[in-house]
């Protein structure tokens, strides 16, 4: 009898766990990486490619297949939140919202001015926007359930880029936009007001949080041009650590004349990767415990962007040889060996993981 009861209980439990598995992971686009393809500027051909974690397959133009319409122009970033994917179209001034498991469209959020990056914060979504030339950057707060823009915060800074939620605050990197900036804006999401601007390195772009609750900012630096578009100098690149309680800053210089554009962190919360972007070769690895800028890259190659899978630490590296040919994604294991190469859409710049 006991055995039978045990088996019955086990059977019921199994049935219930299978049900759970069905409801959350059964979509067409679950269990894989969603590659964000910018498309060509002014061509309205941004797209999403789906690469399942197992195997070598890829499905391109996932949004078009589900909804029979173009996604928009220049897909810059995306956020998966509460079973939905929020896709930021930089040159279309909008966010497209779809179900992340089957990509059926839900709505379009308009009223944004050159939106760049997006981060989910407790039922809200914070979106950074550059605005037009001469305008201040803005961070808009969007309700993740009603899709309405609750508030738009003018940061009075230039080129708002990466957005991160950490230690109950929203941190926005100001990359300089049409001019120059070296600050990170800190917003209190409870009142949606700016509490501080922290000075970091030149052209801060992306931010990640490590396992100790510190924030790391990649400051790309940039080339300095004269009136005839000749390069006359460089602002150097650096990695900056911010203490989220004291706002104290530690700077680790990277290079005087090289400008890596992207930053990500492995699931262990202590291995940082930076690299990618125009004219920058390789992806470099540093440890948050003892930052030593390496001479050689961990992964070699010229990548337009990269992201690290939070599931297993695989590094997805995007190659964009031009904006008319399809790009490639090279997936490397965390030991640096190449797992697979897959052809994706035009101008892949990053990935989000379902």
């Amino acid at each position, binding site marked *: 009898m006991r055995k039978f009861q045990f088996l019955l209980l086990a059977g019921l439990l199994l049935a219930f766990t299978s049900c759970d598995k069905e409801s959350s992971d059964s979509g067409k686009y679950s269990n894989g990486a969603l590659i964000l393809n910018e*498309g*060509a*500027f*002014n*061509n*309205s*051909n941004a*797209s999403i490619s789906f690469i399942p974690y197992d195997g070598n397959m890829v499905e*391109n*133009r996932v949004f*078009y297949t589900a*909804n029979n*319409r*173009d*996604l*928009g*122009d220049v897909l810059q970033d995306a956020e998966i939140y509460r079973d939905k994917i929020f896709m930021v*179209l930089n*040159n*279309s*001034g*909008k966010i497209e919202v779809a179900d992340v498991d089957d990509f059926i*469209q839900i*709505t*379009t959020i*308009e*009223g*944004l*001015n*050159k939106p760049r990056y997006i981060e989910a914060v407790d039922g809200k979504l914070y979106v950074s926007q550059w605005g*037009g*030339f*001469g305008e201040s950057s803005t961070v808009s707060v969007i309700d993740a359930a009603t899709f309405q823009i609750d508030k738009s915060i003018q940061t009075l800074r230039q080129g708002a880029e990466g957005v991160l939620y950490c230690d109950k605050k929203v941190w926005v990197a100001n990359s300089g936009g*049409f001019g120059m900036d070296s600050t990170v804006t800190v917003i209190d999401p409870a009142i949606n007001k700016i509490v501080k601007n922290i000075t970091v390195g030149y052209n801060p772009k992306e931010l990640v949080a490590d396992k100790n609750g510190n924030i790391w900012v990649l400051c790309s630096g*940039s*080339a300095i*041009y004269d009136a*005839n*578009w*000749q*390069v006359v100098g460089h602002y150097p690149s650096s990695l900056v650590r911010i203490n989220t309680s004291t706002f104290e800053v530690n700077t680790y210089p990277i290079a005087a004349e090289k400008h890596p554009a992207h930053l990500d962190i492995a699931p262990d919360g202590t291995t940082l990767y930076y690299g990618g972007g*125009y*004219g*920058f*070769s390789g992806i470099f690895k540093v440890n948050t415990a003892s930052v030593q800028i390496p001479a050689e890259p961990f992964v070699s*190659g*010229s990548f337009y962007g990269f992201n690290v899978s939070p599931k297993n630490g695989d590094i997805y590296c995007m190659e*964009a*040889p*031009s*904006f*008319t*040919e*399809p790009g490639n994604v090279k997936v490397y294991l965390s030991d640096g060996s190449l797992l697979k190469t897959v052809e994706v*859409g*035009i101008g892949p710049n990053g990935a989000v993981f379902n």
Partner: protein
Amino acid sequence: MRIFKGLLLLWCSFLSLVLSAQPVRFVLTDTVLIDEVKIASDYREVNSIGATIQPIDTVILERYEGRSIGELLSAGTVSIKSYGVGGLTTLSMRGGGASHTAVVWNGINIQNPMNGGVNLALLPVNFFGRVSLQRGGSGTLYGSGAVTGIVHLKTKPLLGSGAKASAFFQYGSANSRTLYATADYGAPKMAVALRLFRQKSDNNYLFRNSSKIGSPLERISNAQSEQNGLMAEANCRLNSNTFWAVSGWYQYGKKNIQTLMSSAIPNRSYQKDYNFTAVSNLKYAASRVTFSLKNALMSGNIRYVDPTLNLNTANPFLSLINECVASVPLGKPLELTIASNYTYEVGWSDSYVENAYRNRFAGIVTLKGSLLDNSLVAVISVRDEVVNSDFSPVVYSVGTEWNPVEWIGLKGTFSRSYRIPTLNDLYWISTAQAEGNPDLIPESGWGSDLGVVVRGNLNSFQWIASLSFFHNELSDWLVWINDPALTGGKWKPMNLNRGKTNGLEAAVKGSLAMHSVTINFAAEYAYTDSRIYHENSYSGTPMIYVPKHKLSSWVGVGWNGFAILYNHTFTGARYRDAQSMLPYYNLGDLSCSYSTKIFGKRMDVRANVNNIWNQDYQMIAGYAMPLRTYSLSLGIRI
């Protein structure tokens, strides 16, 4: 650095504009007329034996008055790409790119030396009395850029007697207004003509936005356009052997760049194009040789402004063309023509290095002969060009036409073509993001075609049918690329791609006259299988925006001054980028007109319905085209 990327990509994808004609006939008396025709004909046209040259029917030309050459040609079988309503419009024939089709006016190729293209939206149909399409390249006679085809634009011939004037006015949907006025004065030894064109449109046509949820009906935004054009021509008979024709043409266009269908914010960028072209043709017919001297000046400026990116660029250029030609008959069936050309091109741009100029010298030799009682004509030509001391590939061509009997003709050509890099390709300033490549070599290729023409005449029914097959190949095709291995992380043009195209063109045309009713009809079909090859990535992938199938047909019925014309085009599915396609579409246009005389002066009234089937379509993905629109026009000749 989005700004820079944006600017660069805009230039890469903007292949646009500029403009060029034939010496006009000066009509006096019959005997003079015969000499005139010989003197006035351009050596290029006379020596294009075997080429498939197809004039656009006058019925169609009149139907498209008030519109642009781009819109006129999109009703045919060439592949036209238009960035929305009135936007940048370029042409692709036989699988070539926009810079592979020459546009010739008064004997000069008006492709813009900075970007190699011509914006057909800025060429008003009203200015041209005759438009012909030459399919297939002719690098020997027309030089660089005439790789897969040529559009011939000819202005209306000057009338020799008395004074004449005309006015044409058109009003249509989206508040589109067009005015075209002419004044001619012809005396026995001299004729002058003045032509004025003005056009304005709000271009806020209704369209179905298939890029938004629910495909709502919306109005095209930020697409307003304005054009002003002025053409002045003079013909002079200096003495019984000497004839001089001079033309000047100024064209201005302002065009707001249409908002992309998928965009949630209206676009604010716009472009202003200024072009001035002047050509002088002097012909002298001696007893054994005919000389001609051509001098031309081509200048222009494109200003592009995007207030949201603080972009305000000016791109002026100047081109001076000088050509002298001598034609000598060598014994009865042969004629030898020798020509030499000196062209100077210079461009100025904030994005150029200093001294972005070049000197081009070209020499051409053509031999034409006829056999079998003139039923077989053949021509062979050779050309070479030196650009700033770099030799372009020597190009040669052979063409023949054979009419064994009156009702059938066979023709064939083989020609090599080339295209020198544009000033943008060579002289773009080196920045952290991009640079020009002064080491580029010209693109070169060859094309061959074979065709048959059959004509028939049955009482009052006349018809003509033609079929041609062609094959062309192009190597060292220029492409701007950012491949770290090849260009060190910068956008740079390289001679990388190869193209191959196979296809056929079929056409049938007929007219029937019964009592006082005339019926005209035509149908054309073009099949183009065009592929690009690239070492590293493409392997025979189809070219973008080249449909495999294009069909065009029209039927016109006229009686007692009334006429109805319906024309229909079918454009097949085509790639809009390396991975996705635009669907096929059908377009129908209907036009009703009435011609009469009031107080002895000719008056024409015309009512048009465009896109009568309300088809939603795009020529370039994301740039909406209008649903059904209407227009009304009135023309008076005094």
